[in-house]
């Protein structure tokens, strides 16, 4: 057991540290401003071109084939410099890598990883949230193509996406989990309508609704086999729940660092309970950083954590919401009198973490039945 940097890791950390000092775009805290989401693409390509993204992924697709734990260093250095977190798309890479043919991987992974192609994920629908398998968007075969009709929601960055990782129903006379297929659908075509969503903290650039009305996708863009969509989706959502895949530790640590600086500048202005909230947010964030160290170390031998992702998602949610609560506590009355208060926005955004990527209730169902082995009724 060793938490220290190896010589190669230390060299990487130093190189990264210097690069960030030169290239930190100084974007606002990710969850609070449209500017952050608008300039996310720039940051992605800059990080990639600097040689600091896709660290553990195959060189063939633009990665660096480094051990998984290098992502811990990336998150730590981004946080300590106050830089934006790394792009959160590892789960799409995992989905395509696990289920896509060689042709699909060669065609889509390089652009996804480099940031040249922007992707969104079309899974949830207005009537298919936690019960994802009941989704009603259809993909109907028409010659060498499928025709897409349906309504997707919570589609992050759909307005800037080049491609949509879409889950649609291709077969109707089979149990609901078996009739789904996954596709890479071009977003640059007629038959697609974007409807942005305004979230409770006011941002409009993250989540959207997408309406498909006769959009078309070549059959060769199917990811996995016909009817394999549910398995593809489960691969993606299980990785979407892993803080090691998402890099969110950097986001939380950055906020906690900011809060600590604020309090240190004038500790006399804060009550004990406000300072305890910040100290607790630090404890939580450290826990998650160390949990990610442990998970990514276990992955050095290729361990797939499966339902363990639900444990990690719950931990990550509690951390994000502790950080949001600490921010609100330190802001005090300002969060109530100033609608543009950043702490207010961080706090409000944190409430979404127990819903997005599968609600905390769904995660607990998974932990109870698949990890603890409790019976289902």
């Amino acid at each position, binding site marked *: *057991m*060793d*938490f*220290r*940097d*190896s010589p190669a*890791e230390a060299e990487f950390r130093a190189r990264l540290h210097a690069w960030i000092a030169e290239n930190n775009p100084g974007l606002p805290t990710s969850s609070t401003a449209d500017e952050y989401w608008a300039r996310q693409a720039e940051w992605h390509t800059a990080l990639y071109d600097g040689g600091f993204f896709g660290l553990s992924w195959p060189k063939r697709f633009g990665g660096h084939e480094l051990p998984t*734990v290098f992502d*811990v*260093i990336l998150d730590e250095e981004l946080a300590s410099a106050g830089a934006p977190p790394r792009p959160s798309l590892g789960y799409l890479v995992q989905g395509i890598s696990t289920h896509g043919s060689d042709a699909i991987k060669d065609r889509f992974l390089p652009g996804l990883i480099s940031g040249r192609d922007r992707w969104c994920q079309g899974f949830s629908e207005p009537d298919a949230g936690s019960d994802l398998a009941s989704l009603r968007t259809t993909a109907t075969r028409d010659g060498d193509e499928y025709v897409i009709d349906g309504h997707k929601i919570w589609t992050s960055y759909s307005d800037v996406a080049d491609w949509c990782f879409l889950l649609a129903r291709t077969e109707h006379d089979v149990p609901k989990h078996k009739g789904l297929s996954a596709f890479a659908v071009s977003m640059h075509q007629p038959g697609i309508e974007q409807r942005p969503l305004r979230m409770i903290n006011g941002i409009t650039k993250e989540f959207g609704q997408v309406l498909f009305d006769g959009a078309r996708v070549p059959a060769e863009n199917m990811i996995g086999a016909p009817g394999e969509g549910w398995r593809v989706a489960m691969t993606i959502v299980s990785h979407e729940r892993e803080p090691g895949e998402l890099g969110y530790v950097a986001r939380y640590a950055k906020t906690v660092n900011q809060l*600590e600086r604020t*309090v*240190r500048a004038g*500790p006399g202005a*804060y*009550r*004990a309970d406000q*300072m*305890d909230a*910040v*100290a*607790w947010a*630090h*404890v*939580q964030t*450290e*826990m*998650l950083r*160390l*949990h990610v*160290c*442990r998970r990514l*170390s*276990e992955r*050095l*031998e290729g361990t797939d954590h499966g339902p363990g992702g639900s*444990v990690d998602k*719950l*931990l990550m949610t509690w951390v994000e919401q502790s950080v949001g609560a600490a921010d609100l506590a330190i802001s005090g009355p300002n969060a109530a009198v100033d609608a543009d208060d950043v702490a207010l926005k961080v706090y409000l955004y944190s409430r979404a973490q127990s819903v997005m990527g599968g609600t905390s*209730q769904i*995660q*607990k*169902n*998974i*932990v*109870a*039945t698949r*990890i*603890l*082995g*409790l*019976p*289902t*009724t």
Partner: protein
Amino acid sequence: MDTRDTAEQAELRRAARQLARELGPATVADLDDATRTKRLAAAVRDAGWLELRDDDGSGSPIAGGVEAAIVVEALGATVADVACSGPLLAGDLARRARVEHDNAAVVFAPTLVDAARGTDAHTNEEGYAVDCGGDVDLAYVVVPDGKGYRLALARIDGAPGGADLTRVVRRTSVGAELAAVPAQQRHLTPDDLARWHALGLALTSADLVGVMRGVLDITVAYAAERRQYGVPIGSFQAVQHLLAEAHTLMEGSSSVALHASWAVDNLGPEAAVEAGRVAKAYCARAARTVCETAIQVHGGIGNTWECLAHVYLRRALLSTQWFGDDGEQLLHLRRDRLGGTDGLS
């Protein structure tokens, strides 16, 4: 970075868990089985686990904080009623002072947060020897002197007691006479005491992780077997969610406690203490919730003396207070990191 167990650590973990399973109490009635407790104590002693922090002959400990925590966690998981953390901490302190260590305990201040301080002649305050073996009647007191600190020995005069039914707490009187430690000793520096403190935080955190793991095991088994409305209570989402949350708290605690145990020997003294404080704050809060959940899921039976759940909760209460509870850790973290002085003299 690779936080996985080495082959030796994995083997130690397996052996410690097996021994704890075989010789720990399976029921509350087992706590009165003197034959079993003697076999358990002998097995732990013969394995050499009480000496892991003793001097290996070169001034270094025989094994790292990680190995000590592995053993402590395994014993906590079966509420094994044998002294282990106490002897490990006494051995660590004696090693740092280059004292010939002979089965003494450590006297803790009444708050249980730190080793008791004494003068040349006697103890300044009432204290407690925590997790001392049944045959131990002497305990170390830390005596400040010009060059740092040295150790003296106090007689433990109180009868065994305490909330924890599996580990002994004995009182030492205020003004108890102190005897000099016979062998020549090295002065303890503040760094020595900090590292020793970090070990205490790491071991009590590891014990709490073990307690959580063990109490969850018996509670999940109970929920799968206990039937109401014709089905196992573990099939109800209300019960499943309580247990899922408890399991998740245990996993997070495990990650943070591992790091604290590694930090004892591998980070600077201040950073090691901070790692210990972070771990202890998290594990103490988590363990309280997990043990209370266990009692709730056991229902009425969980509130009876015969159910092991309260034995776990009681053990958690001692490990929480020993070296300071979550509030104590947060107080220091906020003082160190935020510059706040509120509540500290």
